[in-house]
């Protein structure tokens, strides 16, 4: 098992395996998203309070969940990279950051669009919205720090420390924002009751589809990051020749 892991983590091997798995990931993601779209836009009954407007849910919630999931992945990969000095783990963190930042932006934008008809305003300083915004700032800081180094190894390690600081801080930020908001105004969050199954399964499909999409895009980026980190030229030549 361990040797298998090591083999997988070796750059040439990983590069090949990633190349082989990307189509599978993409197809699965595409099918799941298509099913989620059909289920969410056509099959699911309209919400009894929000009517058809609640359908933004099917793109908003998966984006929001992925935005946090990707950050967690990034921080764990960064920690592994720091502790075991594993290049591939640093590459995972580096490749995840832009994807996660985009998911965060999507979650904010769709939340804002959803908020306009439901709450009557584009933006509410609500706890969840605010912590999502701070998450975006954390991503931007990570990307900014990473891009300010010329040396890839230093960029990897410095930004890894930042990712770990960020993940330690996230719960503190989240709970302080919740506390802050609950003092100033009542929670405007829609309390999610038990959702009927016809509404739920498209959301789960979309979520799984988004997660697989993340996997596919991550692997495409990872192939690039692996090449960037490779110093020995023998297999690079092999890759480049074909």
């Amino acid at each position, binding site marked *: 098992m361990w040797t298998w892991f090591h083999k997988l983590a070796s750059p040439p091997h990983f590069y090949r395996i990633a190349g082989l798995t990307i189509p599978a990931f993409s197809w699965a993601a595409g099918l799941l998203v298509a099913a989620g779209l059909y289920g969410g836009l056509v099959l699911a009954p309209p919400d009894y309070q929000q009517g058809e*407007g609640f*359908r933004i849910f099917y793109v908003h919630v998966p984006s929001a969940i992925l935005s946090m999931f990707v950050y967690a992945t990034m921080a764990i990969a960064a920690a592994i990279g720091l502790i075991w000095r594993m290049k591939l783990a640093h590459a995972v963190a580096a490749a995840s950051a832009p994807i996660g930042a985009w998911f965060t932006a999507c979650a904010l934008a769709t939340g804002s*669009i*959803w908020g306009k008809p439901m709450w009557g305003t584009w933006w509410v300083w609500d706890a969840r919205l605010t912590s999502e915004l701070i998450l975006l700032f954390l991503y931007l800081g990570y990307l900014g720090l990473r891009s300010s180094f010329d040396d890839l190894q230093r960029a990897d390690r410095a930004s890894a420390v930042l990712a770990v600081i960020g993940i330690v801080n996230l719960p503190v930020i989240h709970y302080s924002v919740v506390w802050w908001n609950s003092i100033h105004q009542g929670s405007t969050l829609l309390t999610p009751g038990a959702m009927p199954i016809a509404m739920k399964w498209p959301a789960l499909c979309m979520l799984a589809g988004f997660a697989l999409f993340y996997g596919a895009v991550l692997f495409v980026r990872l192939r690039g990051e692996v090449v960037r980190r490779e110093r020995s030229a023998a297999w690079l030549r092999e890759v480049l020749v074909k």
Partner: protein
Amino acid sequence: MNIAEFLAMGGYAAYVWPAYALVFAVLALNVWAARRSHERALEEARRRLMQEESGR
């Protein structure tokens, strides 16, 4: 259910469709950016190899 009714989204069309369009545009952008990043890495590697070979 007819198409016009579906597109109208019960009066929420102006919110639902832009949200979906935005998300899928961003997803497409992600694919494009990832591909470009991969290609750039290959280009850089190619350049590095050429330099090494000509330097030798």
